[in-house]
């Protein structure tokens, strides 16, 4: 079983549209994991049935028992996150600021503070429209630790892929270079980078690739909307050559990506040029995985 992670650094390059296209092409050969838990969108294209759902707990939250509190204020003083303000003559915990370190609980002289585990979202296991299994999640608003939720989604998907004897796990990663991205990279066999020929697309590609390098994972790159700026596309191709990243495909700007999306479809379900280009890229990815 091989694990393929799709990343972009920059948002809006078409990462999710292309990941879902790969997932449709792979069909029941793959288990799909939507690890972009912060703004999960893949379900809009894969139409999962949300067959199983479970609550996800991560981290803790401080709770003050007002009956036991003597309002000494030590907790508020020690809290480095400014999460315990004094409002209307009581100390209260602001759940959006509390990072669950538990320092307040340790220093409270009257043991008025307890730590409770915190629900931070839901994890779903679904059947998709192409008869594959998909693991996805929804992070609660302002919740922390999306890195842990990413790890949970991915590990669940891997476990299911093993049980069902599937060839691939296809992972839609988060934008950025922070903790959710690092979490989605661990254990991956191949990274597909989706970029666009803009100054920010290239800048963010360079940053995300320096993270990927640390993991020593092979990577390939799809340049989406390549015709918006052919000169930038050349610069990206030059970067790929220098870094030994496989150039998987150039996909032209095509308004039908959006049209497909409004019909809850991926572009590979419509008769379009991108359909064939993405198909070709998928063969190349499979090739690279068997040759390594």
């Amino acid at each position, binding site marked *: 079983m091989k694990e393929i992670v799709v990343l972009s*650094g*920059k*948002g*809006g*390059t078409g990462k*999710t549209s292309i990941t879902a296209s790969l997932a449709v092409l792979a069909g029941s050969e793959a288990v799909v994991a939507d690890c972009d838990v*912060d*703004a999960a*969108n893949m379900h*809009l294209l894969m139409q999962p049935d949300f067959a199983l759902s479970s609550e996800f707990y991560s*981290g*803790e939250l401080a709770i003050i028992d007002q009956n036991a509190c003597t309002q000494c204020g030590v907790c508020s003083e*020690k809290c*480095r*996150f400014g999460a315990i303000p004094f409002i209307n003559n009581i100390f209260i915990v602001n759940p*959006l600021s509390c*990072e*669950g*370190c*538990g*320092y307040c609980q*340790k*220093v409270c002289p009257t043991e008025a503070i307890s730590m409770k585990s915190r629900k931070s979202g839901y994890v779903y296991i679904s059947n998709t429209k192409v008869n594959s299994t998909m693991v996805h999640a929804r*992070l609660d*608003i*302002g*919740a*922390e630790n*999306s*890195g842990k939720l990413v790890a949970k989604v991915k590990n669940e998907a891997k476990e299911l892929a093993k049980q069902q004897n599937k060839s691939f796990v296809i992972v839609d990663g*988060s*934008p*950025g*270079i*922070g*903790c959710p991205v*690092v979490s989605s990279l661990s254990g991956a066999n191949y990274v597909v980078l989706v970029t*666009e*020929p*803009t*100054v*920010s*697309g290239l*800048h*963010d590609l360079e*940053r995300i690739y*320096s*993270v990927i390098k*640390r993991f020593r994972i092979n990577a390939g790159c799809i340049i989406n*909307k390549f015709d*918006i*700026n052919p*000169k*930038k596309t050349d610069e990206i191709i030059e970067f790929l050559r220098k870094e030994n990243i496989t150039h998987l495909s150039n996909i032209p*700007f095509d*308004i039908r990506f*959006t049209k497909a*999306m*409004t019909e*809850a479809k991926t572009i590979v379900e419509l008769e379009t040029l991108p359909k064939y280009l993405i198909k070709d890229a998928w063969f190349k990815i499979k090739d690279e995985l068997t040759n390594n």
Partner: protein
Amino acid sequence: MIKKGSLKIAIASGKGGTGKTLLSTNLTAFLSQNENTLLVDLDVEEPNDSLFINGNKVTEVEQFKMIPQWSESNCTLCGECTKNCKYHSIVQMGNFIAVFKELCHSCYACSELCPTGALPMQPHKMGDTVEYASNNLNFIESRLIVGEEQAVPLIHKTHKLVDEKFTNSKFQIFDCPPGTSCPVVAATENADFVILVTEPTPFGLHDLKLAVETMRKLEKRFGVVINRSGIGNNDVETYCQNEQIDIITKIPFNKEIAKHYSIGELVYDKVDSMKHSLNEIMDFLRNDVTSETL
């Protein structure tokens, strides 16, 4: 509400790539034609505003977060620190205490609760903040070092710097990270008003709903800008009408804008439809936001 002289406007969106950077940089340049304006790039994981804004570098400061450093000679290996750290960033390996600094939240519990003072807090570099200036426009960019995983401490540091140094700017524009989790909460927490940038597609709508939920939970005033208007469908507009959310302006989809953007050029003075939208935003800020906030 009567308070300080700057109007703080956060530009956010649930979904990435909807045009936060496009709007932040062009709105800043547009407003700075008449008013002293500050742009702050808080998308510290992937900061892009500097690709569009030219100016002279004024200062560059290193940003640190505090992490514990094990002092072997003071340590009695009592194990308190490993128990007190909720983030598993302190691990005892035989006679050795290891600190995993990427996991540390700088809560100080291990350090201050250590009975022998064996974990003094030390600065650890997490990023840089660079300040640029040109005429009426000041620009601050914070950039997380590759390999650092936590954006929030750097965002907080940047807010602090802005409040200490830039009290004179009439407008402060904050380009926020995408999403709805902790970095976005940190980036928008000081804002007087939040502009949510979206696009009229199912992905755009889905993530807009999450962003709206976030802003309501944070009790922020907010309005919506629809970028690339004309692609996709009308569901975003219908949603905003049903929820009584102000649509501040619609920026029509235009390949010219995409071309200028791709080479790092601003369009506020080049593309008429963009000029029109920026005027609508400025009128909205002047009439609907400033009068109630300043």
